């Protein structure tokens, strides 16, 4: 299946892009996160939340084709 990934803030800098289509076998949010950490080693030390179709879901939630996944880091600045 194809997932539509969106990266924000430092995450976009770490992976070098703001969007991408990510092809993977059927997987859960947790499995996708592991796949992303394997693809982008810098993610391992970063703090972020994963939203699926604009909501935060359980790590075990299964993803569907065309889901929109956002990796959102906290911002410190003010």
């Amino acid at each position, binding site marked *: 299946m194809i997932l539509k990934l969106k990266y924000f803030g430092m995450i976009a800098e770490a992976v070098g892009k703001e969007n991408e289509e990510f092809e993977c076998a059927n997987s859960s949010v947790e499995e996708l996160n592991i796949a992303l950490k394997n693809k982008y080693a810098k993610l391992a*030390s970063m703090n972020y*939340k994963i939203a699926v179709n604009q909501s*935060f879901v359980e790590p075990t939630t299964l993803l569907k084709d065309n889901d929109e996944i*956002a990796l959102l*880091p*906290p911002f*410190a600045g003010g």
Partner: protein
Amino acid sequence: MEKWNDKGYNPPPSEGLGEALTAQEKKRYSRHLLLDKVGECGQEKLKAAKVLVIGAGGLGCPVLQYLAAAGVGTIGIIDFDVVDESNLQRQVLFSVSDIGTNKAIAAKNSLEQLNQYVNFNIYQEKLSTQNALTLFKQYDIIVDGTDNFSTRYLVNDACVKTAKPLVYGAIYKFEGQVTVFNYQNGPSYRCLFPEAPKAGSVPNCSEIGVIGVLPGLIGTQQANETIKLILGIGTPLSGKLVVHDALQASQFTVNIDRNEEQIMLAQQIDFDSFDYDYFCGLKQNQMEDEINAKELQELIKSETLQIIDVREEWEQPKVAALKAINIPLQTIPENLDKIDKDKKVVIFCQHGVRSLHAIDYLKQQGYNNLINLTGGIVTW
């Protein structure tokens, strides 16, 4: 939160709501009075409202400017810092002559020129577990314009404890986040980010830069949300995080659910003993990256570790108690999937030199959880 209902801010009459606008005020706020959704009643609500703005920096300046212009009757400003020349690129309340002046004072001086009908309370101090609760209790809404996680968690928890809505904004280079926390059983900051980021992992504006107009974009949205809450108009931005991208002129919205465990956690934190700098890893929490054999013997009793032997398979001695996995140095690149990223990983070799090479390589791969066994396994 009895002062709040679905018609917005409604304090008991003893607290001043209903205090009529003077003729001068009616003139000044005439464009508000013309609006059905504000009118005289709304303007009186604004006049009676008390808002505390934490930090008079990039976000604080536009928030303060619009709240003061709108006629919010009492505005608290807390900031311990002084105006620096490098602030003037975005902190629009300040001028060259303010350089070196405390920001709360400089902001008040500037805002008094803007609106003489507002009461400003200034606090030239750092927000802390010692002063937060007393301070927050004197206000109806708290606006977060801080620049570090330790204060953000403190502000959130103090809002939960004192049942005050929190208008949150945060910025990073060209992107900003806005939402309203802790409003009528909505989520809190901890519901969004339960874990504080590792110390130093998320830089602030002074370290990495910020486009000057960004805090203006985010701060005015915070001011807008604050005014909406006071007036009880529109839909409060509660339960939704808006991420604004200044470069694309786009907004991304994500729903945030309330997490009762996190709310409870914030309520139960003891401000007499809790150290937010420690919680955010700014103190002591830095991981020791070297350990000796004796310390390792203790550590394996108290913590689940992964222990990796980077020697060749034939090398002796083997220490069964360590339950080490063997990944010879040269084979590390093809065995990254076996190396844990979450728990502490102790790496050893014969004398502690190859293990350092392994750690150097793994750090480049994004690992930050590595500990070297000083002197190697021969010291066991």
